[in-house]
């Protein structure tokens, strides 16, 4: 296994890998600046079989493994009793009826598949591009770098690098971390090379374990993921967005001051967009079946004003 970078090295990446000012003082897109219209157009050419695969968990109410707070659903009106003659439903008297609900959730955490906006994390009191952390407030939420930065969604080439498959295991051991060498070996095995503007999805196999164990799944445990050493590689390749079947970072990372280096350096310094908790079992099976590890990737976050991310349903289209 490669030697992990020192803490001093990781801390130096806040400066060395910084994209602050690279795309202007008011930039809100961060690494999505690598995604060009030509890239989006060429990614559409990857749709040949007409197969679409979701990379999202179901959002369920009740206690779920890894949920910070249980997701809530309150029905405001339902169909209950509407078979009874004369019962008034949502749409008043007559033959029409309907249902509606309130939903609430904390999507950050280890349960919900979600996109982190660039307002999600701070380092030394700053967000990406030097914006002060105090611009995220109780009253107004995120005044800078909310998820509206990607209102138009993301459509580009997606690439699955299946590290569990590369290792020949169902799921990576918690102390088996993913290094740039692994990403490159997986590229070679898949016959692809990550390019600027691509979305990288990396599979550890953890989602297979979670799906199999259901409510017995223990989310509070060490886990594999991208080792911090991947940060310069992601920077050099110009990756626009990363996702995986874990919350990106290995745990424990082994650093005193920066416990989630992919999140901290990635979001704050690089402006890198992260999609946490993507189940990748169906995608891996489809890639295997088609022997194709690149696809059109599509993601459309909900247009929440002032919110630090969004639950999302990333799609891989073949």
């Amino acid at each position: 296994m490669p030697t992990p970078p020192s803490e001093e090295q990781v801390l130096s990446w806040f400066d060395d890998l910084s994209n602050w000012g690279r795309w202007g003082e008011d930039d809100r897109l961060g690494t999505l600046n690598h995604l060009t219209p030509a890239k989006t157009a060429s990614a559409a050419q990857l749709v040949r079989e007409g197969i679409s695969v979701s990379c999202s968990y179901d959002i369920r109410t009740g206690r779920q493994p890894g949920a910070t707070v249980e997701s809530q659903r309150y029905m405001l009106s339902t169909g209950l009793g509407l078979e009874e003659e004369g019962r008034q439903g949502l749409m008043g008297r007559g033959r029409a009826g309907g249902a509606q609900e309130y939903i609430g959730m904390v999507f950050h955490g280890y349960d919900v598949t979600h996109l982190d906006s660039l307002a999600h994390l701070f380092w030394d009191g700053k967000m990406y591009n030097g914006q002060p952390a105090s611009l995220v407030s109780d009253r107004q939420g995120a005044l800078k770098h909310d998820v509206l930065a990607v209102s138009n969604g993301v459509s580009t080439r997606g690439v699955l690098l299946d590290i569990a498959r590369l290792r020949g295991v169902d799921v990576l051991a918690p102390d088996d971390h993913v290094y740039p060498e692994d990403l490159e070996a997986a590229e070679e095995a898949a016959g692809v090379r990550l390019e600027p503007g691509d979305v990288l999805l990396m599979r550890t196999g953890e989602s297979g374990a979670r799906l199999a164990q259901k409510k017995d799944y223990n989310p509070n445990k060490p886990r594999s993921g991208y080792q911090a050493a991947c940060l310069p590689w992601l920077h050099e390749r110009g990756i626009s967005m990363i996702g995986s079947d874990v919350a990106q970072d290995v745990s424990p990372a082994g650093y005193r001051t920066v416990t989630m280096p992919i999140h901290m350096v990635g979001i704050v310094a690089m402006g890198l967009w992260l999609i946490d908790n993507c189940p990748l079992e169906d995608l891996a099976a489809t890639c295997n079946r088609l022997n194709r590890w690149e696809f059109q990737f599509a993601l459309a976050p909900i247009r929440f004003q002032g919110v630090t991310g969004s639950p999302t349903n990333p799609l891989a289209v073949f």
Partner: protein
Amino acid sequence: MVTVWTGLLIVGGGPGALAAAEIASGYRLPSLVVGHEAGKGPNAEFPVALDGGAVAALTPHGVLDVLRPYLAVADPPTLSPHVFEDILKHHCVADMNVTVYDAMEVTDRRPAGAGLRGTLTDGSARWDVEAEAFIDTSGYPDGLSDAVNRAASDVRAVLKRMQAG
């Protein structure tokens, strides 16, 4: 082997472990809660009122506010130890000052200054763990308020020692 560093290592389980983690977090002291299991006291399902000391310990930094929607009675704050742990556990997982590793243990414990060193393991993988301070809640009293008060007292002692050191 990766070394896991933490300000405060907490083992022993029960409501006192989570209370200690959240009180420490309020003082920005990072903690690692290892092998937490819910307390198995005889009355874990029955709501009990928190005493003044426990309320005072949990009120700063909004810890009591986290529990408020789940109180059986608002004043005095009343809830079962089971609910206390269920709610606070999720809060600990979301708290960036707290790391929670269930189904693990710290073996080969040995003093290191005022803290502790040992081996964190899930039975197969292993990590060195190094903590500036250590709290074992396995000897905490069963009563919810008593456990919270003991946790607050232990965290205060840790902070005092760190400030002195």
